[in-house]
């Protein structure tokens, strides 16, 4: 397994994430409806709004997963935040970075991953909107455009202060 690399700007990235005051806050309907929409649109069993903290990824919104966080090192989203573009793994068993990942060879047995990075400021990617399936899938240009659009809507929400907070 390739451990999720730490980007050079991680201190700034973490500062931007923490400035949002969103980590470990309760679920919010404005995010949950976007994640539910994504899960429904793509017919995936798992959809997440994942925020990559220093040592963990924490889920602000989740469908299909019990855990509220996992370690950063084995996380797929830790890889996805390294680039501007969506990280697409159509079959994890065919990708040397993930073929022996504990979340591939064990629960939830990830076989497909698509993670669109959430960029809160230029170059500062704090997490992802991601889709996970337990079977390999194809993902075409229209799917990528739909996922990117939903990611943009999540980013808009992240930039707005929560009305109840």
């Amino acid at each position, binding site marked *: 397994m390739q451990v999720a690399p730490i980007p050079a700007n991680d201190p700034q990235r973490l500062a931007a994430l923490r400035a949002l005051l969103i980590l470990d806050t309760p679920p919010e309907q404005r995010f949950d409806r976007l994640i539910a929409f994504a899960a429904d649109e793509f017919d995936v069993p798992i959809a997440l709004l994942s925020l990559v903290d220093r040592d963990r990824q924490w889920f602000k919104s989740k469908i299909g997963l019990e855990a509220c966080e996992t370690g950063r090192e084995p996380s797929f989203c830790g890889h996805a935040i390294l680039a501007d573009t969506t990280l697409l793994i159509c079959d994890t068993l065919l990708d040397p970075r993930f073929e022996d990942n504990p979340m591939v060879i064990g629960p939830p047995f990830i076989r497909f991953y698509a993670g669109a990075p959430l960029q809160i400021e230029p170059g500062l990617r704090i997490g992802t909107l991601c889709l996970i399936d337990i079977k390999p899938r194809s993902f075409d240009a*229209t799917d990528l455009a739909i996922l990117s659009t*939903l990611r943009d809507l999540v980013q808009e929400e992240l930039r707005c202060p929560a009305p109840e907070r």
Partner: protein
Amino acid sequence: MVTMPRKKLLLVDPHSLFRRTVAAVARELNLADVHEASSHEVARQLLHSQHFDALMLDIGDGLSALAIVQDVRSSGTASDAALSIAVTAESCDLATLKLFKQMQVRRIMLKPFKVKTVLDVVSELVSD
């Protein structure tokens, strides 16, 4: 190289997340310039003030959607009377279906459906 302007489609649907997603993806994929209306009232205003190449209309409750289509077909809007129209519905009885078909509605889509399916229909509507 000359770039053709995108065709204009009016999407009428009460669900903002659905509308915004369709509009943004259609723009990104260069399928159409999708304008949004959250209600039949807003749709009427837009149809009277702007020309559109296609219309995708949620029929909602009552007969106001039917009146909008009648308005288009009788040249009562700024668009061509032969405007390409698709309607969407939570449910639709046979009598209503027949009325829309008589007014040359090209597609009747029952909810729920995927954004991807809608984009295929958008592409079809603006392809003429």
